[in-house]
């Protein structure tokens, strides 16, 4: 029951953090694109980074990492945003400010993500998250290796 309560509390906090700050960040980025003003979008990116940090703090408080669903949602959203941005640049609908906003956003997200992996898992562990070792699927004779 206690574990279940903790899991619910953590999810609630994560939702609350994204609802309170993350959503404002997203809106400010849209506002920045719309008004073609870099600093508005930069404030939004700041909000997104703050939310990301708050999410990590919540994870630390409850002694967990990102859940599978959160990782999937995050990566999918990132992929979709990159796709939309690239398509709009290729279609010629983006101004120079829009271009810089996009670069800042995606650059920050990638650097933030890598920093998170490095600080949580270390250099070797972070690499192992992506590197699929064939040896894991090979049975080792005599229990050695």
């Amino acid at each position, binding site marked *: 029951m206690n574990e279940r309560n903790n899991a619910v509390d953590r999810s609630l906090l994560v939702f609350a953090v994204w609802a309170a700050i993350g959503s*404002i960040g997203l*809106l400010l980025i849209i506002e920045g694109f719309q008004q073609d003003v870099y600093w508005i979008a930069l404030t939004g990116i700041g909000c997104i980074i703050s939310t990301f940090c708050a999410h990590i703090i919540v994870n630390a408080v409850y002694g967990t990492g990102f859940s599978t669903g959160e990782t999937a949602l995050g990566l999918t959203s990132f992929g979709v945003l990159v796709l939309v941005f690239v398509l709009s640049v290729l279609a010629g609908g983006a101004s120079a400010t829009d271009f810089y906003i996009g670069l800042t956003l995606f650059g920050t997200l990638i650097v933030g993500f890598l920093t998170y992996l490095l600080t949580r898992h270390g250099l070797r562990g972070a690499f192992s998250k992506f590197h699929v070792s064939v040896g894991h699927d090979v049975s080792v004779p005599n229990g050695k290796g």
Partner: protein
Amino acid sequence: MPAPSPVMWILLFGFVYIAVVLFWARQAATANGNYQSYFSAGHSLSPWVSALVLAGSSVSAWFTLGSADILARDGFVHGYLLQAGVLLALPGVLFFKRSWFIAQRYRVSSQAELFKLYYDSQALVVIVACVALLFAVGFAGMQLRAISQIASSVSGGSISAFTIGCALSLILLGYVVIGGMRAIGFLGVLQTVSLISATLVLSFLILVEAGLIGAINARMQALAADSVGAQAFEVSGVIQFVAGLGRGSFYDHPVSAVTNLSSAYALLGIGLSPFALKIVLSTRNTKAIAAGQTWVLAGFFGLLVLLPVGVIGAAGLGRAEFISHSYLAALAQSSPWLTAWVVLGFAAGMQVMAGLALLVAAETVVRHVYKPFFASAMSRRQTVTLTRIFVAVLAVVVVLMAFLAPVSTSALGAFALSASAQLLIPMLGLCWFGWMTRPAVLAGVGFGLFAAFVTDALGIGILGYLGLDVPWGRYPWTIHSAAWGLFFNILVCLLVSAISQNAARTEFRQHLRAFVSEALSGQGTAPLNSYAWAAGLAWGFLAVGPGLIFGNYAFVSDGGWSMDFPSLWVWAMLFWLLGVTLVWLLAYRMQMASHVDLDITSYEPPPTLRPDQSAAEARRLRSLIIFALAGAGLIILTVWSFGGAG
């Protein structure tokens, strides 16, 4: 690049909101086991959830948008609104901890049950049910209509307010019916943070648009230079002995210092309401009562109302384009996403209170009135099912009342606060003063409710419609109906208590009081008590009482404002700070709300036989129907004979 239509963004955010609501409702239903812990989440809500939801439902969209509009209309004369955080926290500090302990010991989960248990009075249960219904239909309906109208104007009228109201009610109905109290707790957190964000964003946008605080202050100073405009920055005396609103004229304006004090009593009604108690009693422990009341409600929300909401109100003073709904409608043209998101935040802020009020009203009526009187054999599953049906019925009534009878809804909503404030006396008797007897409390509440009713718009309107034209208006002598009610409530309670002391000490009540004394022994220190209570009285006198008159001129020099801000606003900031200190003193230093780690064993009542009640219940139901029909006939006859002529 042209901005897309606001309607698209309203729909987009609306669908995201619905998805989130359904997700958490499902989580709650799973944890509830469908009906087992539907009413009070198995008393397992996390303390921080409880603190946040309590603050969110106490403040709700009414305090943020509503207070801003009142400030923009009348100026800074409503000191009680600026002290809302502290005032809303005070009942919690006084009553929540003790109520929680009693509820845990005797395994009850609502205010109605507490009163039934302690006073053994079904009449008090019915009164609690009526108060809960007033909040659900009146207070929530009033907010529903206001938010729906704002959303409709933001959409440029392409979605009608009624449609939006129906959609919001449907969402509300969905999660209350599916997840009960647990869903209300879970979603309450998200709704509260959305309300906070929406308020901060709106305040920031208006602040920037209005030329920052310097420009707002300069405009207010220009307004204050004019004798009529100056009325917005001065409380109109201590008291005015006039017949009341709608009857004769006032000196300057009708908001006196005593109006503030008496309205502050009405605000206490929110903390004393059945829905506030419901959250507390559904919580796992008392860990967050002190922190919730001191830092979340008095501290954070107090500051939110004082500054961001104050800024929205100040900007709108004399500048109609900065009144929240006008500003949002204009903003929708340039930033539809921001506008839609802000409106959704306020809608969520309305739902945090409305959902709770709906559940508590339905539970009280079904579980504590209908079941014991007419269907005591109902199983828990049947009770939950009937409550769900009643929630649905109430949701429909709320929408219909809000849009078909807005004046009546507003009157009901306003009276909800005054009526709930009358529960102060039963709560004092339950938690603190064992000498308050059952007949005294009952008589006090009865007289109090009557006095509040006949001095409020609702009572005056109903009596006028029935042909009884009372010689006073709303809030006679500029005193709010809540204070009139409390005056008679306390007076009658004291008198009847003095002559009915033999009824005070039943065995069960002594047992309960002994438990409270034992559980909370060593709480509070005598030398501090007198200082704390003196500080409390001084704060009440100066912050919202007659001393508020000093605030008119405290920060004025050479005909101008010595700190650039209106004197009453600075006065409010000063007393907010002192108010938070006061709440902290009471909650922590006097340990009135601080956490006590205690293993509470449930009270086992002596076993009694439960005779078959079905025949008596059927008889009661028949009597109720006959009484209702006779009452309705009598009212129709009276209206036909005397009333309705205008």
